[in-house]
């Protein structure tokens, strides 16, 4: 074996070892205490306008019809439960959906902001996924940025009259990918590479989480399609009556 081959062997062995550890990592919650204090606060501030908008929108919904209080709560619980259920992944290990793409499609991005941060708090406290100091960063990536992209793509596909399954798949898939990219960027901003700065660091983080996040995004896309189509076929009228659906379903009815 040449020296070069030996090196490549070592590198790929190291990478494979990493790969073996990585599948245990689920959706990309930044763990507790991982971000420097300044960034924790900064990401919290960045989320704030979105959360305030979401809060006001929910409060108005409840003022209009008090009955929607339990409905909104059920939706939040639903997102949590869906994201806690172990789903079989292609590699055989266990994964979890984030559920935020589904939430954005069903309930709209403003509701998902508030429901998302609540779900993240529960995930941190009840399941030790994520953290309280990293709540701002995680909320931004998973409950604001991702859902906005999901919702945007969903609406865009709707306007382009694309196939329904394809729209939902793309919405959930791209939302997940965007969350993954945003999280990598958040980490890179906090820990820029010495030799390449933030961008090089971002590439590193993207690379290291890719083995889990890319397949996860695909699975989430598929499962979101299955869920949305299932909900519409079996629960169409009920969903419509709640007035909680984002615009498209209402148009379609």
């Amino acid at each position, binding site marked *: 074996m040449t020296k070069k081959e030996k*090196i490549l062997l070592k590198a790929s062995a190291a990478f494979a070892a990493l790969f073996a550890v990585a599948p245990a990592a689920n959706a990309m919650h930044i763990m507790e205490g991982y971000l420097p204090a300044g960034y924790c606060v900064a990401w919290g501030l960045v989320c704030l306008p979105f959360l305030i908008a979401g809060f006001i929108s929910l409060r108005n919904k409840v003022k209009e019809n008090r009955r929607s209080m339990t409905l909104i709560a059920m939706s939040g619980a639903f997102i949590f439960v869906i994201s*806690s259920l172990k789903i079989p992944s292609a590699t055989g290990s266990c994964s979890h959906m984030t559920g935020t793409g589904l939430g954005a499609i069903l309930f709209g991005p403003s509701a998902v902001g508030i429901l998302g941060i609540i779900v993240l708090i529960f995930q941190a406290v009840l399941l030790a996924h994520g953290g309280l100091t990293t709540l701002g960063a995680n909320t931004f990536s998973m409950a604001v940025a991702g859902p906005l992209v999901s919702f945007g793509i969903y609406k865009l596909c709707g306007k382009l009259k694309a196939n329904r399954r394809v729209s939902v798949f793309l919405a959930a898939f791209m939302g997940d990918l965007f969350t993954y990219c945003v999280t990598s960027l958040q980490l890179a901003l906090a820990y820029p590479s010495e030799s390449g700065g933030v961008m090089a660091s971002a590439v590193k983080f993207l690379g290291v989480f890719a083995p889990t996040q890319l397949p996860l995004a695909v699975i989430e896309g598929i499962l979101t399609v299955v869920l949305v189509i299932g909900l519409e076929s079996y629960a169409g009228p009920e969903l419509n009556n709640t007035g909680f659906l984002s615009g498209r379903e209402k148009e379609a009815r």
Partner: protein
Amino acid sequence: MSVIDRLCYQSRLRYVNAEEKFVYAILTLIFCVASRSFAVALIAFAANGILTVGKGGISLSRYCRLLLIPVSFLVVGTAAILVDVSEIPMDAFAFPVGDRYLTGSRATTMEALRVCAAAFSSATCLYFLALNTTMTDILDVLRKLRLPSLFIELMMLIYRFIFLLFETAGAIRISQESRLGDRNYRTKARSFGEMGSALFIRALSRSNSLYDAMESRGYDGKIRVLSQQQPPRKKKILMIAGFELILAVLTIREIWVRTGGHG
């Protein structure tokens, strides 16, 4: 479903005033993150371990297993911080790969270790709060902190509803499995979708019924409930204040040193 939820109801520290626990956990957490100091991390790690396992009564093996949950993220993330690809080899380690190096500097390695220490000790703070305080009590504290009441009420309802949905989801899964709903990946996916829709439909109807029940008891838009809290104890408050003061001093010192002052 949630081991942590089950454990917090059995903790021996459960009935300690929730505000005391909350303030302690959050302050310690803040100091761990703000200081990035090994000393603070070690003190916090030790304190939380003693409190949770020793005083709280959580079994050591369980506690260790719980601490492993964030480890995979820690390993992967730290690897990404540690290892750089560059043309110039750096001073901590360097593996040549082609015409570049997989390398890392001493400064980055130190920083990576600090991050690990801060993250790990922060996780123990979160665990202290989660394993020794019920969610209901945490919500009581949040209410006292004057978070918007709609937010708190949503959290209260969601907390209860989560368990309702889990029960229903479990029942649906069992009935699906007995009908061989998971033969191959395709049927598994479809079963998941059917379960999800069935779950949501039942959730909708239940949410209506729950609202009727709340209305029947005079719900007028504000959820008013009594809280059961032991009053805070002076001795404990002093101990917490003293402990946090130590951490504060260490944190200030650390920041002073890091920003180039002469410590």
